[in-house]
């Protein structure tokens, strides 16, 4: 077993509806999907976000696209037009979720997602 942050295994996207945020987590293969279905429960996500999410967390499965969707109540300081938060729409909550660490079998621990290569940005910025 290895202990890995979800950022090594999954894609993510967050969205908002009022004071409710959702974060989707995407697995790249069936084995990883089975792993996150087992490990990333609604209760763990609720605990991970602590005081940031005041209300309930519900989890939904979309096996056709190997995704889990977490719906978090009371997660945006009152909702976009009311919130004092810089990230009033919760766009960064996906990144916050993939900090969560889970136990990963050795068979999957080698499949880490690559790190960004932005050398093309240097070419533009140095011009």
């Amino acid at each position, binding site marked *: 077993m290895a202990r890995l942050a979800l950022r090594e295994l999954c*894609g993510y996207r967050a*969205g908002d509806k009022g004071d409710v945020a959702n974060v989707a987590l*995407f697995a790249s293969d069936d084995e990883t999907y089975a792993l996150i279905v087992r490990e990333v429960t609604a209760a763990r996500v609720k605990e991970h976000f602590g005081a940031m999410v005041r209300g309930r967390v*519900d989890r939904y499965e979309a096996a056709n*696209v*190997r995704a889990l969707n977490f719906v978090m109540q009371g997660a945006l300081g009152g*909702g976009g037009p009311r919130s004092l938060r810089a990230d009033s729409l919760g766009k960064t909550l996906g990144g*916050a979720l993939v900090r969560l660490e889970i136990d990963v079998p050795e068979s999957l621990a080698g499949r880490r997602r690559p790190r960004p290569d932005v050398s*093309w940005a240097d070419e533009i910025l140095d011009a």
Partner: protein
Amino acid sequence: MITNAGGINPTAAAHAAIDTARKLGVSGITIATVVGDDVHTRLGALHSEAGQPFAHLDTGEPFDAFPGPPLFASAYLGARPIVDALAQGADIVITGRVADASLFLAPLVHEHGWDWDDWDRLAAGILVGHLLECSGQSIGGNYSGDWWALPHPWDLPYPIASVDADGTAVISKPRGSGGRVSTDTLRHQLLYEVHDPARYLSPDVVADFTSARFVDLADDRVRISEVRGTPATETYKLLLSAHAGWAGEARVAFSWPDAYEKAKATAAIFRKRVELADLEVDEWLVEYWGVDALGGPTVPRSASEPPECTLRIAWRCADQRTAGLVGRELVPLTLSAPPAGMTGAGRGAGTSATELLSIWPTLIEKSVVDAEVRVVLEEVD
């Protein structure tokens, strides 16, 4: 062209479009306006006489707890009035509040002649609409995969959907444009702002996004088929809003050493000065950018100190003037606070207070809304 850009005044938007068409010398087009989503003036009667409970959709709070006079009340209409407008020959359809995905379903129903109880096809159209409604987000925008490797990301286009009469769709993008169309880029959008993906509630149908089959084809194309739907509900989503005070905010940066401690002390000194100035603040929010502003409790405590830290402090007051005065209490701290190393907020500092709105999502029976929905046609000749 079909748009819900009429916002809370679609009639004025249509007049602006007509004026623009005339100025450009465009003639022989018909502009349709869809009205009736706005139930603001009827709200009280709908509640007390027509028995609409208007309980908060997320919290269940009763309408009695609504915080102040409603500023607007708009129902999310579906595709039907747009299809009516197209059937009457509209070239441009301007609406108020219509669910975004329904804007894309409407031309499919019009062109393919789908029935309003053909749930699987309507669901396919809504799913396609959901994939298209956020422009670049389905083809590489806000993408968490290998975003750095997308072809020329400075030229990210809008996606295109080609939808057959049976509801099968192929998502693509303009030839030679940037971005990428793949099952992975599309699934990022599929669940964006979605709650239960097996029951995506649109005004026109309840779509099961978990039924869809995605197949990657060559050349930035993905085929989507087998989408299933079930009958639409009897209600529309209704969005109400009330004034919620005024907000101000300030950002100041601190350098190493002790950047975080300096930021924290400055926040405390600022708050104390506001208190001594007898300015009433209803809510404070302090964020330490570079430490945990965005991640909050998900960020592990670090043993090493940050090289720099930006304090962002926001406040909410009952009135605009007070919210503005609070910000002034920070200015002298540049020279007169103990923690050295604070920079000014730079050019563009001193923004005025912003009005806050609380929003109250609820439901309303379709029949009481539909009774007032109208399509107004105007010809530009």
